[in-house]
């Protein structure tokens, strides 16, 4: 049984009352405590109560004696709801209180039933009258219809109240249908009543007006059926869920787009570091976004500040795309070196502009520097090239000019605008046909927003309440430190550059201990230094959040390139046993959402949260829709201490209330030694055992609130990925368009919930895609008894390119099936 199916067994309208607990569905219809599918005015039937029961005054033994009717499948097709559900559980707003009140009294369902019954009754009486025109039938019809209309008005008013309480007047299809249908019903009612008032004998006539009178009475029946049907569909559980749809619309948008084949144009630009390649990337990303396109851009650069050969890739598309390609449609070489640097990436269809030493099949064999010098000066090569690009693509120059004005200092406008125009004119004189450029998506007219993975993570931490960052700089993590330091002028954020990563992490612990919400940013090498501190974090049960942007190791490795090689480090760092959470976002939106979640979980469960990004995700730019920050819960778990406060009080959940020094009467004592409930050093074996158990219970709590993997498609071959591989796998599966393939994306990496993995065990084959050479996540899955049939691994410092990955996945699928 799925959650969706479960929701129908809500104990109301004659349905049995089912609830799920830890994957098992129980029938509580016979329980006195669950009349009408409601329990204590707090809970409703038809939902999974695993989480709620932890806060209940009774244990799970309450289910004893009730019939097990099935197992709950955690698989939610297409839409990853669980994160939103989790978010909702944390949020108790004033609207939530209204909702609870509403749940107890629900005026709309109460008032709605009267008019429904009366409309049926009126129609029944009218039919009787038509067959046997007796006065009692006529009178019965009229009064029933009169009261049906009056009660209908009341039901409408209460319905609108419902719309506000539950939906914020949000436009959702069933509600729109209900609104129109009820207006229609009300109008017919008024017309019928008016007709009857004007001519009380109208029913006995057979003219057009009389026919309309009968028609209005009879047609309201299908109307109220529609009203009742959609009302029934909006059960309480679904209302809660629909409410989250506001938060979820971004996800749906991005998820759905994976099923659409996109049209894109991929541009790659090569040049040396410091030559202004960044300028052209900014300019082009902005201009395409302002034209309403979905934009994806990613860079590949050498570990040097000046010189070398770097590339940026900009993909312009009519739907959301979140992956780079190996072979671009167009390559723009700003210098000769960049041509030899990317030679392998020139496909038969790639059009190359620039470079004179090599010859390609589609090639404008010029020196861009020389051309720029000829038309303007060498200094303006970037804007000249941008203008040229627009000329080749036959795009309007005006948009480019506007973006240029936005990003350049005013004094530089004139010369650069001239360079654009010259480049544009030059391109037009060349008479080159390129691959068709996509049309802007339908919804255009509004500029598209775009964000890089670093900034998205930064906003996530910010909305998670991060108010302190203590870090030692290390690529590719430093962007988040820079971002939050930049915002510390507008927000209360304490920033300190630590003397080393050991200090950085211990500062985080000090910050949380004293009531702040601390973050540290680092990469693998720095995180390795934090290991001992991580263990301290586990022992003292101090919350902490680490932003770990991975790069290829070991040791210094490839400092400016990407890999998913530090999962095992994150999993096993720190001596001794203690719970931790590992998250890994797959795209910008997830980067933001998980940033918030990291702080929420760290605070609530008093555990270290390791947020695994990587250079690719951190540095790539993708489209994002507007995010409503009001939707993120702002819970805080600090308590004011009493004089007899115990920091490590043994509890059923393993979580002790966390007080902070200086707030309340008590003292807050944290000890790195094994400690008693006071936080005082002890060597008692009994206390030791109870404390180990207490910490372990938190791990189980974490498992229970785990976010299910996002599952897209319903085939029986799973293509599993974690973290930043999400976009590439999505693009590949949409290209392959093979109904046997299903994408399974993990962003909650550890601890895994076995219930969530059950979907995988139903698969015929499982293929795991990872950007490392040891298949680290595959190992983690194997520890949870998931059988992996094949892996696709990579460790060349690049992200997965969709046009290469597509062949690899197709090949593996062919081999297996």
């Amino acid at each position, binding site marked *: 049984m799925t959650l969706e199916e479960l929701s129908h067994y809500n104990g109301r309208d004659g349905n049995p009352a089912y609830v799920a607990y830890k994957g098992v569905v129980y029938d509580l219809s016979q329980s006195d405590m669950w009349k009408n599918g409601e329990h204590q005015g707090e809970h409703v039937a038809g939902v999974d109560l695993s989480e709620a029961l932890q806060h209940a005054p009774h244990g799970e033994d309450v289910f004893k004696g009730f019939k097990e009717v099935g197992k709950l499948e955690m698989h939610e097709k297409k839409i990853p709801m669980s994160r939103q559900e989790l978010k909702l559980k944390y949020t108790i707003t004033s609207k939530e209180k209204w909702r609870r009140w509403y749940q107890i009294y629900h005026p709309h369902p109460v008032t709605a039933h009267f008019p429904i019954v009366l409309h049926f009754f009126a129609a029944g009486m009218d039919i009787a009258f038509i067959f046997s025109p007796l006065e009692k039938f006529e009178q019965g019809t009229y009064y029933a219809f009169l009261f049906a209309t009056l009660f209908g008005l009341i039901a409408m008013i209460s319905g609108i109240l419902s719309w506000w309480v539950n939906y914020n007047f949000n436009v959702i299809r069933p509600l729109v249908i209900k609104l129109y249908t009820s207006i229609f019903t009300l109008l017919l009612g008024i017309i019928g009543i008016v007709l009857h008032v004007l001519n009380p004998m109208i029913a006995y006539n057979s003219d057009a007006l009389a026919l309309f009178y009968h028609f209005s009475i009879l047609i309201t029946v299908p109307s109220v059926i529609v009203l009742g049907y959609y009302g029934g569909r909006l059960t309480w559980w679904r209302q809660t869920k629909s409410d989250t749809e506001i938060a979820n619309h971004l996800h749906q948008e991005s998820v759905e787009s994976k099923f659409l084949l996109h049209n894109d144009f991929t541009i790659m630009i090569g040049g040396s570091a410091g030559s202004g390649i960044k300028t052209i990337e900014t300019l082009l990303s902005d201009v395409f976004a302002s034209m309403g396109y979905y934009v994806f851009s990613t860079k590949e650069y050498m570990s040097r500040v000046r010189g070398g050969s770097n590339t940026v890739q900009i993909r312009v598309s009519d739907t959301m795309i979140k992956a780079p390609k190996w072979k671009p449609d167009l390559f723009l070489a700003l210098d000769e070196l960049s041509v030899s640097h990317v030679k392998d990436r020139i496909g038969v269809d790639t059009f190359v502009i620039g470079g004179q030493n090599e010859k390609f099949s589609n090639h404008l064999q010029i020196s861009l520097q020389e051309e720029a010098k000829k038309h303007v000066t060498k200094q303006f090569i970037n804007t000249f090239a941008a203008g040229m690009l627009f000329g080749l693509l036959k795009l309007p120059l005006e948009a480019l000019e506007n973006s240029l004005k936005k990003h350049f200092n005013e004094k530089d406008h004139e010369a650069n605008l001239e360079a654009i125009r010259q480049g544009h004119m030059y391109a037009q004189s060349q008479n080159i046909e390129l691959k068709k450029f996509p049309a802007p998506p339908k919804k255009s007219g509004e500029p598209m927003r775009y964000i890089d993975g670093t900034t998205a993570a930064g*906003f996530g931490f910010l909305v998670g309440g991060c108010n302190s960052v203590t870090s030692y700089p290390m690529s590719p993590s430093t962007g988040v430190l820079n971002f939050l330091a930049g915002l510390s002028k507008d927000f209360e954020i304490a920033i300190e550059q630590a003397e080393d990563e*050991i200090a950085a992490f211990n500062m985080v612990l000090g910050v949380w201990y004293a009531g*702040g919400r601390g973050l540290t940013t680092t990469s693998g090498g720095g995180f390795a230094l934090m290991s001992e*501190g991580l263990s301290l974090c586990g022992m003292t049960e101090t919350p902490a959040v680490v932003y770990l942007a991975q790069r290829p190791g070991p040791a210094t490795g490839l400092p400016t390139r990407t890999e998913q090689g530090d999962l095992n480090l994150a999993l096993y760092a720190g001596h001794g046993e203690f719970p931790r959470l590992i998250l890994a976002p797959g795209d910008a939106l997830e980067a933001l959402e998980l940033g918030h979640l990291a702080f929420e979980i760290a605070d609530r469960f008093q555990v270290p949260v390791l947020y695994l990004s990587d250079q690719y995700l951190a540095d790539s730019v993708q489209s994002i829709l507007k995010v409503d920050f009001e939707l993120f819960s702002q819970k805080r778990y600090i308590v004011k201490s009493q004089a007899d406060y115990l920091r490590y009080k043994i509890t059923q959940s393993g979580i002790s209330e966390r007080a902070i020094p200086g707030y309340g009467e008590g003292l807050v004592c944290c000890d790195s030694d094994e400690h008693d409930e006071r936080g005082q050093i002890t060597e008692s074996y009994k206390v030791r055992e109870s404390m180990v158990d207490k910490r372990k219970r938190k791990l189980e709590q974490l498992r229970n609130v785990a976010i299910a993997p996002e599952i897209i498609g319903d085939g029986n071959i799973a293509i599993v990925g974690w973290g930043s591989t999400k976009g590439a796998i999505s693009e590949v599966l949409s290209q392959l368009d093979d109904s046997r393939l299903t994408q399974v994306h993990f962003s909650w990496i550890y601890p895994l919930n076995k219930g969530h993995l059950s979907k995988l065990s139903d698969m015929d084959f499982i293929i795991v895609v990872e950007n490392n050479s040891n298949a680290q996540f595959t190992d983690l899955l194997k520890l949870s008894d998931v059988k992996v049939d094949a892996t696709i691994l990579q460790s060349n410092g690049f992200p997965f390119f969709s046009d290469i990955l597509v062949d690899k996945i197709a090949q593996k699928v062919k081999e297996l099936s």
Partner: protein
Amino acid sequence: MNNTFIRPETDKAWCPGCGNFGILNLVSEVLEELELGKQNLVFVSGIGQASKTPHYLDVNMYNGLHGRALPVATGIKMANPELIVVAEGGDGDMYGEGGNHFLNAVRRNLNIVHIVHNNMVYGLTKGQASPTSQREFKTKVQVNGVSNEPFNPLSVALSLNASFVARAYMQNKEHTKEILKAAFLHQGYALIDIFQPCVVFNPVNTYKWFSENSYILEEHDTANIMSAMEKAMQTHPFALGIFYQQERKTFEESLWKSEETSNPLYTQKHDIKEMQKQFDKYTLSYL
């Protein structure tokens, strides 16, 4: 003696005759006499015999890792500048394992009291040389005697323009308490290196040795860093007292722009509307 700052029902793990008992008593008496509120007082420590002191004091405590008390103290001051924070530990903890943090706490002018028990030996690990062990000191590891130059915490702190530098010998009870009180009243980083014998593992630097090899500074100008440095460089005998004291802008004063914004972080929440505004700025035209 009825001292409310001594934590009840605790078993002290020090050897009989250990100098740590004396320091514990002096510190607790100073807290009592200064009438400090327990709730606003946080003691941070690392690992070592001296680092157990906070366990025996009835105050807020964060006992962390070997050498890492100072970064934790830094974090605490960042999150709540209103707390009075004391970092306490031994010479191995603070000058050895945590040496880098020591340098940087001084440079930050972290507004804390930094108490270092200096017994010139490793006690918890049973008798190896510490950074402050004197030359020729023989141990099971340094079998031919210590050859390293002893670490001089005072001159190092002074070279970084520390705002309060002092040394005491725990047997000079009133003198040590006087210095401790001055340190608590000082705004900014205050180092008090306290000589303390280890009766089990240091047969050289005994109660007698410390008495014979130290003297109390008199007629010393605590505002003169050069003369402080001169006194700090002199050893055998070692001067005791406040070497240098000069208040300057503290860590928390530099961290926060104004007094209104230096409220404890737990009282603050970010403005969601401002966040929405920033998101628009970054996602619509900012790269």
